[in-house]
């Protein structure tokens, strides 16, 4: 209850710090999501509709990568971007870009693995027809993505959920620097470590409200489109 009051207070006082952090959270997560979607959806689809040796292994690997610990992803990206690492010259460590990279690594397998399953189900139905019409390669990938568009929103929302909630990786590569790389989750972790549990929960409530708004908007758009078109 205190958390709700706190969340309410943070929002109605238009706390500028809160909005800065919230804005960065949204920006980082959405950019990461966009990149992960652009990579993950075609990848998952490609693996669903093409038979080749090693395909099963790749799908298993994707499924397993859904269980990649964020801290490990954070460390790997950290070592890459660290000034003494291979990409150190770019000076990306402790920037929002670094956080986006870490999140892309984390959520691309999720989106790919989940969309792989969705498309595989559709593939059972479409396979013969597509074969007969000579639809292959990237044309087939696009056709599957278009026809599964409503089901795929859930995969993308799962990726968004993971991105917006993620803390372990972004705190390592972002460093939780105030006014630079502090996002909602790292702020929550910081307040928790300061023992300000009410504030932490208040921030959590704000974040969850954001997640609900985004999901609500997506669901509404999707339902509207579905009704105007058809399932």
């Amino acid at each position, binding site marked *: 209850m205190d958390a709700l009051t706190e969340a309410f207070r943070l929002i109605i006082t238009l706390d500028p710090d809160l909005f800065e952090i919230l804005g960065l959270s949204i920006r980082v997560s959405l950019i990461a999501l966009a990149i992960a979607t652009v990579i993950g959806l075609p990848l998952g689809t490609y693996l669903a509709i093409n038979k080749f040796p090693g395909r099963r292994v790749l799908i298993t690997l994707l499924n397993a990568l859904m269980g990649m610990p964020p801290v490990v992803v954070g460390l790997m990206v950290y070592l890459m971007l660290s000034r003494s690492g291979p990409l150190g010259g770019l000076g990306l460590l402790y920037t929002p870009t670094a956080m986006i990279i870490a999140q892309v690594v984390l959520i691309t397998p999720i989106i790919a693995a989940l969309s792989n399953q969705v498309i595989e189900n559709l593939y059972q139905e*479409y396979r*013969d*027809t597509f074969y*007969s*019409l000579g639809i292959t390669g990237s044309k087939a990938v696009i*056709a599957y993505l*278009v*026809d599964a568009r409503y089901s795929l929103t859930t995969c993308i929302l799962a990726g968004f959920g993971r991105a917006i909630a993620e803390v372990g990786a972004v705190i390592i590569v972002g460093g939780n620097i105030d006014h630079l790389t502090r996002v909602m989750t790292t702020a929550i972790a910081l307040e928790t470590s300061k023992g300000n549990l009410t504030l932490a929960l208040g921030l959590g409530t704000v974040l969850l409200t954001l997640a609900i708004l985004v999901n609500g908007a997506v669901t509404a758009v999707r339902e509207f489109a579905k009704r105007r*078109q*058809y399932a």
Partner: protein
Amino acid sequence: MARSPRYGNLPNDANMLNPLLPIRFHDLRLKRRHRRVLDNLNLLIKDPGITVIMGPNGAGKSLTLRCLHGLIKPDRGSIALGALSVADSQRQQAMVFQHPVLLRRNVMQNLAFAKPEADHRELIDALTAVNLDDRAEQPARLLSGGEQQRLALARALLNQPKLLLLDEATASLDPASVLLIESLIRKQSQAGTKVILISHDQGQARRLADDVVFICRGQVVEHRPADAFFSHPESREAQAYLAGDIIV
């Protein structure tokens, strides 16, 4: 039922040039769950025109057509179409399935999907040919059963195939649509397309067939000109089938 006039299907020059003829099935064998569903099937289709495949449910008619279209690899045996393999000829084939699958898009988009380079006029013409031009904007999966079947046929014809395979394509059509489709098929055949169709409808087979292939238990039991087949079926199985008796 009114009969439409029987057109002659004599081979003309266009037919003689069909590069996918003759079609030769050699010792085709296919096992499914320990059962031989195709059992050393041999078949030679030399002539252009319309070949009708008949046979009891579960005989292996659909599987045979799927092998020919390259959807299934037989366990043993071979198929040749003229000088071509199944894979090489596949782009010149078109198939209408027993239960057609339409995309989750509207009628027009379903057509355009099969031939992206086609212009609007061409698509509308194709719809008009199957009497669906007033349904262009409707979601394809909400069409009635018969309308779906007609759309699938229009889609198959769009790319001017050299070989057209139809698996009970008129099973859920009304009499007028059946005649419409039959005349479309006949026109296509006269323009040089080899047509192979599966049908349980003896009226239709008599109207369309140049030759009839009778399949039973995964084997070709009889292959003869249509007139001969219907007037004097040779095999016990074909006699029983035409009489409506159960074949075991």
